[in-house]
């Protein structure tokens, strides 16, 4: 069974894109560190990498909504990639996908921004 931990890392790509790598479980525990990671980022666009996430629950969705709201207030664009089919469906059902662009993987995300 996957652990309860959540980790986050900010990666600055050479081409200027900023990526927030999420790892582990996205639930309410993720709020503080994810928001802190978001504050570190700069630029008009920020990408969320979900490829190392194994579990997202409704409190995690609330955390992501919180980050989307922050980006929206600053006029920044949010993209996401690395979601499993299931969480892609969840993002569609919850309409998160209407407010962030979902890409298949990092390459697609970076190319789209270039």
């Amino acid at each position, binding site marked *: *069974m*996957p652990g*309860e931990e959540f980790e986050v890392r900010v990666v600055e790509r050479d081409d200027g894109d900023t990526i927030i790598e999420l790892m582990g479980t996205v639930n309410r525990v993720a709020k503080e560190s994810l928001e802190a990671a978001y504050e570190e980022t700069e630029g008009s666009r920020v990408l969320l990498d979900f490829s190392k996430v194994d*579990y997202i*629950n*409704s*409190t995690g*969705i*609330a*955390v992501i*909504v*919180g980050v*989307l*709201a922050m980006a*929206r*207030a600053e006029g920044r664009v949010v993209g996401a990639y690395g979601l*499993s*089919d*299931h969480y892609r*469906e*969840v993002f569609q*059902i*919850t*309409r*998160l996908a*209407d*407010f962030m662009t979902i890409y298949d993987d990092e390459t697609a995300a970076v190319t789209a921004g270039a």
Partner: protein
Amino acid sequence: MVQILRRRKTEEPRVEAVETPLKPNTRLIDAVPIPPGDPLETVLLSTGGPLELSSLDLESEALQTMREQGVELIVPLIGQGELLGALYLGPRLSDQPYSTDDRKLLGSLASQVAPAMKVAQLVREQQAEAKERERNHQEMQVAALIQQTLLPQDLPSISGWGIDAFYRPARAVGGDFYDFIHLDDGRLGVVIGDVTDKGVPAALVMATSRSMLRSAAHNHTSPGAVLSEVNNALVSEIPPAMFVTCLYAIVDTHTGEVIFANAGHNLPYVRNSSGVAELRATGMPLGLMLGMTYDERTHTLDAGDVMVLTSDGITEAHNVEGEMYGFPRLMGRVGVKPKDGDVVSALVGDLEQFTGPDAEQEDDITLVVVKRTSSAQDSASAFGESTDPVVLGTFNFASEEGNERAAIEGVMEVVSDLGLESSQVERLKTAVGETVMNAIEHGNENRPELMVDVVVVATDHTVQVRVTDHGGGKAIPEVETPDIEAKLAGEQTPRGWGLFLIGQMVDDFRTESVDGTHTVELVMNRKGRG
């Protein structure tokens, strides 16, 4: 001596004596009422001034009586063409006839008295009307209060069913009522009724009928027997001219079977895949005669079917041309499936369109809508007879954050051989996680000593996961679609996704609250989604 006869429109003519001490050698003339239509009235109105009785030759009883009383002169008091009263005068003390000057004086006196009397009469009438209005208003308020207190404050929330009701009193508050009675074994009693008469008397009879129905509903399983019992009890309790029409239906929320009986009320309509049907059952209204029996009918509601119960305030509403709304139009409207699924608003909207926006509502309007939204049994039965459920596993978890993950793992282990599609497995994981998390946080309020029970049951066609908490808190709320725009704009908390997500993940989702426990049942069809 002068007597004034005062007449009021709404009353019998009556006499008001003017109290003055009598001089010696005088006597009081009893003023004689002039009944409406008496020929004397016509003569007085046409003459307009003092009239000597000796000059009259009329077939009038009043005139005869006046003569016997010794009346010599009569002076009509006329206001706005109406005989308000008259001055009656006996012989002059000097025994001389009344002179022209006397008559002039009396005529001018009368012309001044008459308008004053008219004003006094109007003032009195207005005071009486104001009093009456105030009394009516208070009565209406009392009636409205009784009714509002006794009508259900909440609608039943039953998974797989959508129950809605509408009640709008007329200005004079009629006697409409409706009620929901929770019975054993997932059965729901649905009542709609109408007391003849309006105002406080109707509200009191409505209150009596309601409590009798509630008590009888628990004594009998048959709706006909319930109505019979209430009828017999009501006969001695209500005034002879009053009665109560009532339709009572028992809905089996597991099977969709509706058994109903009718005491002279509007018949229910059912919309199903083949159209609209009227459900017929006959019987006398309640409270008229002892020993009545009531027909029972049975009808089964399938998923998607809607049953509509109404009061005659709808069918008997009129438009400006004086046409009645009527049963055919109601039946036609019930047959139209509203785009947003809101049957009550669609029917009320159509009625308002018919009567016009400013029409005063003639009678109470009551609507009860019972909709079967979905059913695990239905989706299962589409594949043939379902087998008996098999319990695959039971678990319990302390109410500590994170235990939802253990619950997911437990459920996954026992369903692994059922051949669910991988997307279904993922959805079930999310649904179980959210449900158990709700049970821990909201149901058991994170009290670790309280357990969350999880039972997994399979039939040939479904997997059911039942999650029960023991916190005894508030009922599980209705599922609402979160407003993501408002959340992103910071107008709403970003939270509140759990229930919505659960509802989206599984094929059916039911909730039940019994004796301080809440159970959520998640149903996943085993052969593809619904």
